[in-house]
């Protein structure tokens, strides 16, 4: 039953992902990728549970290494995405303050 439930979650989020991402304009595709990279660092959640659990030495080390790699993704991904997105500015030439 659990398997069915998880596949349901999987299917719905794939559809939602397609809907949302196909609306991202081409201009933002590089930040979209680095942002997606940061999101894929979500494995850190699984890694934390292994690294902090007491299942033995090997799973702890595996988990700790995974935490490190995933945190590179999370921190690096969000920071570089933020850096890039803040460069996208619209110069207000004719109508200053017009944000649309």
């Amino acid at each position, binding site marked *: 039953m659990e398997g069915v439930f*998880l596949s349901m979650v999987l299917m719905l989020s794939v559809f939602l992902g397609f809907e949302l991402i196909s609306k991202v304009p081409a201009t933002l595709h590089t930040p*979209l990728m*680095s942002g*997606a990279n940061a999101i894929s660092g979500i494995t850190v959640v*699984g890694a934390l549970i292994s690294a902090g659990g007491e299942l033995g030495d*090997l799973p702890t080390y595996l*988990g700790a290494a995974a935490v490190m790699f995933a945190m*590179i993704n999370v921190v690096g991904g969000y920071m*570089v995405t933020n*850096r890039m997105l803040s460069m996208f500015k619209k110069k207000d030439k004719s109508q200053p303050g017009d944000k649309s």
Partner: protein
Amino acid sequence: MSLVVINFWYVIAAALFIFGLKKLGSPDSAVRGNIYSAAAMLIAVAVTLFNKNILSFDWIIIAAVAGSIIGAVAAQRVQMTSMPEMVAIFNGSGGIASLLVGWAALFNSGNTLLTNITVVISIVVGGMTFSGSILAWGKLSEIMNSAAVVFSGQRVVNSAIVLGLLLFSVLFCLEPSVSSPYLYLIISLSILLGVMAVLPIGGADMPVVISLLNSYSGLAACAAGLAINNNILIVAGSMVGAAGIILTNIMCKAMNRSLAHVLFSGFSAAKQATKVEGEVKPITADDAFLILEAAQSVTFVPGYGMAVAQAQHVVRELGELLEKNGADVTYAIHPVAGRMPGHMNVLLAEANVSYDQLIEMEDINPRIGGVDVAVVIGANDVVNPAARNDENSPIYGMPIINVDEARTVFVLKRSMASGFSGVDNPLFFCDNTRMLFGDAKQSISSVVAEFKI
């Protein structure tokens, strides 16, 4: 915190991820979208620390601090021209993290068959994402030759690897154990598969590969989520997977090639394009200045050459001077210009070009006939009219920016060499084309200097 409460917070995090991606739909709201997404990640990580299976924090703190420092330093230091390499490395790091999480999940007690299958999937996808990304990084940073590596029997070797992976996976799932020799075979083969998959792909096809590896890194996270029964991993991982697949698709369409063709065949210039002959008409910076000064509308068409020459800042300077001179200035960007999706846009944004001047191919083509001067900077295949006219051309059918329809075309070029795909470009011989030979940055600087006199 009980598991129910933790899962409730995961739902909130998932909603914030979705909201963040939605905000990425426009450059105005994108910064906020990224912050929502980061907040979602923070929530997910913070509540996980309350999981009662987590007993010791020593390793967590050391690993998290080390990872954060590496990530932060990399994010601060990276040059915008090197973003493709950065994304490739991050894809690889996401892949290896999923492999490790899957591996560690084997130590949990009471794993079902379904769990073991998903563990194998997360190891295989994670492993090949890791090694494939490292190889892609090597090719992008030109540490190694970026050309496609093709050898005879490649398909046989690759099929053998895939069959081996399937066989060992079945054997492993029949008798799962953390010390099973099949486990190590699966890990080694998946890493080998990643290398073999990226080897036959050349430099010009890199946008497709990075997008695809991006997708894999999400799918690996998704598989790891299935392995440890964690909803937030499934939701976030599948969103990343979807993002990568959409970008891969856009890149393939923009090159008029199928994904299978990109992945398996290298760039085979099997067909001989009709030889184009004629005389090119070189122009000096002085003459270029005179034409530009009289132009009412100017469109810049950047390609990877602009990134190599680091010319984006002088291009923006020239753009501003032209605007002051009363011309309408736009930047037309082909989807596969550069080494990753949207690469040119980021470079121009960094140089302070207003994003409403960045025009997509479909929007510029209908009105390119009214453009006085199209300035092609370090782009070649994406403006090659052979893609439209010459059925024998290897790039025939690829959508291009029709700069040849503009009143005058300037092509900035180092010398008369063909583009990445090795295809001759009839654009150079058009009546309305003027060649401005030399380093793109220097050529534009001299035009800028003329304007300032």
